[in-house]
């Protein structure tokens, strides 16, 4: 988790996970999502988190979490070791998003990715009219001290899915008020008005 603020994606993600599944949460922060999944869905959950404080909080919650980072440690997980691998608000902070996504598809039968959409209208307008990298409530960092080094738009992410051969089973975009954008809307609309996106993928 990299300070992207609102975690409206948690419930959406939880709704995508089958009960009692084996789940790996990559970048699990302080374990809120894993705890939700354990308590509501009885999943057998594991996590990876980069910060010591985050891991300690997770361990104190009784979660199985290791200190590590998505760019380096995913290679040690066996193929198809999990039913679901979750990458929640983390892909934009990885060094090699493409490699990470490929690793996730190798490790999990299904992969859930949530991320902030950098193609959102407000961000576009901010760049257009202020001429500066956007700083918003959900993306509060300045360009020089942000952990978010690989922002993408919903459209970009879909192209990446194509490139790594991932099939999109389900996609949800949330607008600025946290409401789902209707499925009937065209992709350009999602890309312009979706603030958060959640994808369910499989190989």
């Amino acid at each position, binding site marked *: 988790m990299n300070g992207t603020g609102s975690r409206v994606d948690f419930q959406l993600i939880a709704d995508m996970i089958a009960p009692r599944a084996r789940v790996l949460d990559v970048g699990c922060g302080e374990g809120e999502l894993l705890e939700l999944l354990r308590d509501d869905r009885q999943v057998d959950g594991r996590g990876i988190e980069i910060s010591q404080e985050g891991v300690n*909080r997770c*361990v104190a*919650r*009784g*979660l*199985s979490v*290791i200190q590590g980072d998505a760019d380096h*440690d995913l290679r040690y997980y066996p193929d198809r070791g999990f039913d679901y691998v979750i990458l929640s608000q983390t892909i934009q902070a990885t060094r090699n998003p493409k490699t990470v996504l490929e690793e996730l598809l190798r490790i999990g039968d299904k992969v859930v990715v949530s991320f902030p959409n950098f193609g959102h209208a407000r961000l576009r307008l901010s760049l257009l009219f202020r001429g500066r990298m956007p700083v918003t409530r959900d993306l509060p960092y300045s360009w020089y001290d942000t952990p978010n080094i690989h922002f993408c738009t919903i459209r970009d992410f879909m192209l990446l899915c194509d490139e790594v051969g991932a099939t999109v089973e389900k996609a949800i975009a949330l607008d600025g008020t946290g409401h789902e954008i209707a499925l009937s809307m065209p992709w350009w609309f999602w890309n312009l008005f979706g603030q958060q996106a959640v994808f369910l993928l499989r190989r």
Partner: protein
Amino acid sequence: MAVKTAPQSHEQASDPSSLVIRFGPDEPLKLEAGIDLAPFQIAYQTYGELNDAHSNAVLVCHALTGDQHVANTHPVTGKPGWWDALIGPGKIVDTNRFFVICTNVVGGCLGSTGPASTNPSTGRPYGLDLPVITIRDMVRAQAMVIDHLGIDRLFCVIGGSMGGMQVLEWAASYPERVFSALPIATGARHTSQNIAFHEVGRQAVMADPEWCAGRYLEAGKRPEKGLAVARMAAHITYLSEAALHRKFGRNLQDRERLTFGFDADFQIESYLRHQGMTFVDRFDANSYLYMTRAMDYFDLAADHGGRLAEAFRGTTTRFCLISFTSDWLFPTEESRRVVHALNAAGASVSFVEIETDKGHDAFLLDEPEFHGAVRGFITAAARDRGILEA
């Protein structure tokens, strides 16, 4: 030269201030060296009460020069237990809730059968006639103690350094008997550098003329100088450069200026000499050889066809590994190897690296983040085991 009186540690070797279980000729300890050790005895301490379900037992495994006095005043040194910070009533490993057991390892010198014990076939101390003891042998002996105490499954096995090796061996050898495992500042093998430091220590002991080829007890001698040097060298590896420099810098010991001699001019020299001298009062030199050898021989992957993950295949034990950033004896990388193997085996594993400059010995010290992780893991595991209220 007058014959020196036997140190207190030698009295402890045969007649310890501890509980003792004696295993007769019909209950040998089958050593990895291929020899049955019998009779033999294990000295141990317990704290708290075993509950009716026998589900609240915690086994603490001690490190190289540790012993069973984990949470009580030491009978030789008079110091508090070596894990007093962690274990006791109301503490992280709460003896009001848990039944804590700590055994002196076989090969040790505080009451369990070791090189200072009498060899029944000769009537003399074993000396180097005791077969080489391995980590697996230590664990096998502990399992016999646990059987004796009527405990099928331990709630938790916890230990640092050599104690952590025993924890890993427990989890690999008796997975169904370990509900949770806490290996701290340890690894699944001794590295070449670790073996190198141990060899320096052993050579220091054996170079002391008073070592008498291991027969010093009968000769009424003690290889104090050699053992002290071994301890001084080892002690450096337990700390870190930053911690040493913070504590001692280049400060001079009780003097204004350098003496242009080889006296202990610097505080660090004086400190190490003190560490060496006090160590020989409580530890047997031959036992030091056996303990260091046990660690050197430890290679859990080699015992499982070269694949560490195989050691943990199908395990249901939940693990929490902890390492320390400035530990250069068991660097984080060694813990990570174990974590990756556990991941590959599909085990339930947590891992946290604690930021500290206190080196390997951090596991014995008051490190809040470390204690927080232990507390969190044990509390959550106890809840799931039904020992604590949810």
